[in-house]
């Protein structure tokens, strides 16, 4: 699905990602874990075209997306659920979702937006209940659902999520993670960035550990999870002390 080779990226003179090589296979949940500032969000921003890569190669299903615009990348089937939700607060839930479906207008399939809305509402009945409510008045968990729903409206093959558990109550985190697994079961490939390494590795197939912009470990999620000492060394904390949510 997604193949990245030797990707460098950063902000101005600040180099954040150094030669990142990774891939996400069709139907997989792949997680990127790492401490604060490791470059996880930068990686997602670079893949989604919000940030220009300094060097390297990015292929989405045989198509080079290295120079593509963000809209083109979304059109090609790769959507981002940004860190901190970034829902449009003064707009209603439904308006937020319809905006997410902008690509269907490009694709001249505006009549299908209704179906997509129904699909999102069936996945998140809570959003249906609040379809007329302003997004800014939703709880954190609901906003996260809305952000995921909005990304789904573009009918992505690959959905990338940046810290979906951030700032949510443990029970809500559990819901969000089970939604992620459900998306995968429906055939959507997931690239998940998380600081909550234990939870992310718990649902992922494979994982990459980023440290100061470099991949220092990769492997099956269960192996990375089993490797508590390595995790502690790389993440600077003990996984056992993290809240058990899965």
């Amino acid at each position, binding site marked *: 699905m997604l193949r990245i080779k030797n990707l460098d990226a950063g902000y101005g003179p600040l180099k954040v990602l150094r030669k990142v*090589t990774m891939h996400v296979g069709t139907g997989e949940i792949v997680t990127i874990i790492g401490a604060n500032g490791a470059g996880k969000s930068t990686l997602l921003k670079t893949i989604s075209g919000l940030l220009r890569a300094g060097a390297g190669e990015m292929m989405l299903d045989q198509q080079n997306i290295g120079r593509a615009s963000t809209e083109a990348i979304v059109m090609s089937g790769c959507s981002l659920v940004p860190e901190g939700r970034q829902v449009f607060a003064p707009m209603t839930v439904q308006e937020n979702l319809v905006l997410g479906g902008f690509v269907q207008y490009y694709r001249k399939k505006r009549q299908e937006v209704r179906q997509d809305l129904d699909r999102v509402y069936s996945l998140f009945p809570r959003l249906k209940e609040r379809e007329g409510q302003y997004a800014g008045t939703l709880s954190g968990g609901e906003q996260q659902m809305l952000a995921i729903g909005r990304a789904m409206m573009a009918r992505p093959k690959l959905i990338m999520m940046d810290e979906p558990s951030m700032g949510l109550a443990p029970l809500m985190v559990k819901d969000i993670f089970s939604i992620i697994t459900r998306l995968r079961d429906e055939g959507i490939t997931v690239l998940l960035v998380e600081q909550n390494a234990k939870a992310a590795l718990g649902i992922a197939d494979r994982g990459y550990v980023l440290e100061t912009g470099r991949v220092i470990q990769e492997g099956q999620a269960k192996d990375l999870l*089993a490797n508590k000492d390595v995790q502690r060394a790389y993440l600077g904390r003990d996984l056992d002390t993290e809240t058990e949510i899965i």
Partner: protein
Amino acid sequence: MYWEPEQEQMDRDELAQLQLERLESTLNRVYMNVPFYRKKLDEMKVDIDSIKSPEDIRRLPFTTKNDLRDNYPYGLFAVPLREVVRIHASSGTTGLSTVVGYTRNDIKTWSNLVARIMTAGGVTKDDVVQIAFGYSLFTGGFGIHYGAECIGASVIPISSGKTARQIKIMQDFKTTALVCTPSYAMLIADTIREMGISTDTLSLKYGLFGAEPWSEAMRREIQDKLNIVCTDNYGLSEVMGPGVAGECMERDGLHINEDHFFVEIVNPETLEPVQVGEVGEIVITTLTKEAFPVIRFRTRDLTRLMPEPCKCGRTFHRMSRVMGRTDDMLIIKGVNVFPSQIEHVLLGISGTEPHYQIIVDRKGALDDVTLRVEVQDPVYLTDMARQMELVETIKRKLVSELGIGVHIKLLESKTLERTEGKAKRVIDNRKL
């Protein structure tokens, strides 16, 4: 039969991506965690960021057995010792031993890779596996043991030695697969014959042999004597132990577990890559090892790469059986000679046994080689005419195949020391 069908039949293009990912993360890790590599790379002004494809690996320095010795015992470990759950040391074929460590994940990976080669060699969970490798610091015993258990076979950890007992257990426990060095398998086969035991009374089906070079002729001989299917496998403790590569039922080259090891074949003198298919020294970089990653380790083992697809369906490239070691290579009168070549010649001559010893002396300025070889039939020792005839045949064949003249000394059967581990074939008395 595959152990991990998905990996073992992986698309080569996907494999290339995976190798690059793993190579880069290994490099990042060793640069960060192993002062030896960091210092060496910095001194040579090699920026790990310039390694962007597997071919770029050529810019990295080699790691030699000496580097491992210089860092004895723990200097090259990439994780703190508390994360290491096992320590082994190399068998020290060529001198001081070298120390290697494994994390819990390394042991899991290792078991899995051994399970792959054992499955390829015919072993299933229904087999009774007799492991006649030494259980010690040597990686052979434990490596095979964990792999066989991983498959679910019934494992007999008999270790090496006590040949008569090996055979008794083989009969009583109904061993179906034997794992040891080829020279020990030969000794077991000969002992079985001497004891007058018919192979029909044994349940043996498969032999998985490794840890020393052996020839195709020797395979045929063991297969015939024991009436089993023999496969070759390859590994070395500096890199992991058994499980690096192994033959499938086609018995035509050993599939390298390329998703865990990156191999290069280089000319041992110029250190430049050889043409694909040419013989050279195999150089290995580990791609997933945690405790003891090695970068471009010079194995001293000579082989060639076989990139042609294999009938078994595995996509991993094969290496030919190891033809010898660069440090086993004798330069006799300017000619490169490997003990395995001599073995090959001997196996082609009826009357001789593949038990031999090469003694090299220097007389004046000239190399003088004596080949001591056992004969099966004592008639060669009593009947001068037949003795002369056999000696001449051996001499003639050696001259035509190797281009060197040697003295031949025929020995009574069982004169040369039998080993339960690796055979000692060469005694070099030259003070070079």
